């Protein structure tokens, strides 16, 4: 009996000790993307420094929102920290699911001025309150084939056809001309990601900005059904149906990327993280033959790229917000942000963009920075996901020839105005 008592006490003590040893752990839900892998690789350093374990739950993008919402609604959820796509910023802050970080930032002297201002606007502050620290950016850029541009025969043919020198396009008009020129036989001028809702909505946004358009005016009135918007949708439809591969109206970004990577197209407007992937010989038949640049605008030097980013946040339902903040400070410190960038991560801090080691390893870092600095933001408000749905549906209808560009954009305008009104943005 005595022995049994001793054994039970020993077991209780061991359990208590092991619980104490693992008491501090941070749980984070993240998307299965390269930047998550770069964080994962550095986690042992964090545990060594702080004694805090980090458990990453990595899931597909499509599952994230569905998994997050029940945890955010609950008084105490299971996630210590979360990553927030810019789509969800309006919704999460309006619902009051995120903790303001300003007091913690001030108390610890964490410098947020190092972030690219556009990213702080997108996934940092809302109405002057800091809810997130920008994690990584996925601004869109123009991937184009440098070998096709350097080809002497192409240069001569292009000069004869257009009277212009062949080179990286300086304006949107020049780019569209090149798309037409490079569409010959099996080679297409462009590959598009026409799947609804987000792939087509995000890609078309670049066309809108390239034509000088914007989503709304200063009072949040939608401004899509106008010459810029209609031209953008007409051009998009033409590119998909005349200068793109068969079926690109239903391509998601991975399928479109595969066409580009398998030598099927001259260009592809896509997320910046594909720049590193296209140089991977195991995935790409055109490694070393592709470069990235900001989507050109109406004038040389004017960028038309769509901005996109994720931010780190601490939910109000976080079971251990202090430990979560310790992690956020560490993962967003200059040293760790630089290490992530050296693995191929997409920076959000200006000091990492300008870092000599990062630029030496990835010479296209400057182009990535330009892309970000000249990019345009998608409307961020409570109903951004609904706007993406409506936009995706209507653009897809126009590409399928079931609606004219003007009719499709008129519908988007009406529904966007209703959503903005519902959110109190449009008076």
């Amino acid at each position, binding site marked *: 009996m005595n022995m049994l008592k001793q054994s039970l006490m020993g077991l209780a003590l061991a359990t208590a000790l092991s619980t104490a040893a693992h008491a501090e752990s941070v749980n984070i839900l993240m998307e299965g993307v390269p930047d998550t892998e770069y964080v994962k690789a550095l986690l042992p350093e964090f545990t060594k420094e702080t004694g805090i374990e980090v458990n990453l739950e990595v899931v597909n993008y499509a599952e994230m929102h569905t998994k997050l919402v029940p945890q955010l609604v609950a008084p105490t959820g299971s996630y210590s920290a979360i990553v927030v796509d810019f789509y969800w910023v309006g919704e999460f802050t309006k619902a009051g699911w995120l903790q303001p970080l300003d007091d913690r930032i001030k108390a610890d002297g964490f410098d947020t001025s190092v972030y690219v201002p556009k990213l702080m606007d997108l996934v940092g502050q809302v109405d002057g309150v800091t809810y997130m620290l920008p994690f990584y950016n996925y601004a869109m850029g123009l991937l184009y084939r440098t070998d096709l541009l350097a080809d002497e025969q192409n240069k001569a043919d292009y000069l004869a056809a257009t009277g212009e020198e062949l080179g990286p396009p300086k304006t949107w008009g020049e780019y569209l001309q090149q798309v037409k020129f490079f569409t010959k036989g099996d080679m297409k001028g462009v590959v598009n990601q026409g799947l609804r809702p987000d792939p087509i909505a995000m890609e078309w946004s670049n066309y809108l900005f390239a034509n000088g358009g914007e989503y709304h005016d200063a009072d949040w009135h939608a401004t899509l059904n106008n010459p810029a918007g209609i031209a953008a949708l007409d051009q998009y439809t033409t590119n998909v149906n005349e200068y793109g591969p068969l*079926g690109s109206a239903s391509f998601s970004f991975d399928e479109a990327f595969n066409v580009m990577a398998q030598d099927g197209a001259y260009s592809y407007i896509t997320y910046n993280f594909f720049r590193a992937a296209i140089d991977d010989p195991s995935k790409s038949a055109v490694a070393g033959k592709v470069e990235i640049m900001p989507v050109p605008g109406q004038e040389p030097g004017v960028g038309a790229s769509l901005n996109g980013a994720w931010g780190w946040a601490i939910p109000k339902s976080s079971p251990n917000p202090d430990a979560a903040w310790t992690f956020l400070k560490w993962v967003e410190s200059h040293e760790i942000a630089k290490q992530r960038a050296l693995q191929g991560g997409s920076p959000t801090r200006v000091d990492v963009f300008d870092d000599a080691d990062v630029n030496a390893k990835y010479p296209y870092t400057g182009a990535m920075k330009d892309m970000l600095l000249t990019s345009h933001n998608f409307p961020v408000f409570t109903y951004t996901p609904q706007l993406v749905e409506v936009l995706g549906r209507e653009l897809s*209808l126009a590409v399928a020839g079931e*609606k004219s560009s003007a009719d499709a954009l008129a519908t988007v305008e009406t529904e966007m105005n209703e959503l903005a009104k519902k959110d109190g943005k449009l008076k």
Partner: protein
Amino acid sequence: MSRSLSMEAADRRFGWLMSAPGLALLLAVVLFPVFWALFTSVHEFTLIAPNFDTFTGVDNYVTAISDPAFRHSLWLTAFFVFAVVLIEFAIGFLVALMLNSVERFKPIYYGILLCPLLMNPVIVGLIWRMFLHPSLGIVNYLLTVIGFEPVNWLGSTKIAIWTIIMVDIWHQVSFMIVLLLAGLSALPREPYEAARVDGASVFQSFFYITLPLMMPVIIVTLLIRMIFAVKTYDLIYIMTRGGPGVATDLVSYAIYRTAFVSLNIGEASAMSAILLAFILLLTGYLYRYMRTLT
């Protein structure tokens, strides 16, 4: 007499007692969610403001019904269900009849037929999306090898819904085969022997014996398959997201979007209740028809 009555009452009580845990569980997992959804459907309940503070009456139902996109989804779903159930039944019954007369290697045929059914719909969608890639997929490659033009399987508004129907048939036809085959194997031998003695042909045996005897099994099979087909969501989510345009925007996917993209659980519940009403009506009709047969 009174003793046998009291024994009967005791038996009944014992029966209720034994069934009680099962019934309680059924109430908890089936009826409670249904009533909760119905209650939600008459309130303004969103995930941003998850409360029952505002009673909306039939507003969510009116909004859903007056939305042309929802009505389109309902019609498209009706067409989809009709097409997949009919085609799967035709193929399934034919294969079941053939398998019923097979004597050797039956387990091998069963194994092959059951493979698609055992696969997760998400995997089925991903595999077929790869196979049907217009320029890198194997299907179009094989078509071009034998001299056909490549087909725009998922990018054309006219073809996309038929592509989804084809993939669904590939995935689910084995379900029909298995159920119908089970029904065929349970049929009595005597009527066939009598028919053979009377000189009936194979077709006469089929139309006058097999078909009437199989009718209850056929109705149940069609009913189950129909209910599953109405709920088709995974294939749409993986393969088309309702596009191109609204060509494959089935109702379950539309409800998902309303609930988890628009976060409008109240309206999504109303849409689900409308769908449930249609399914109950159809089920009731088929059940009554089955009762007249038996």
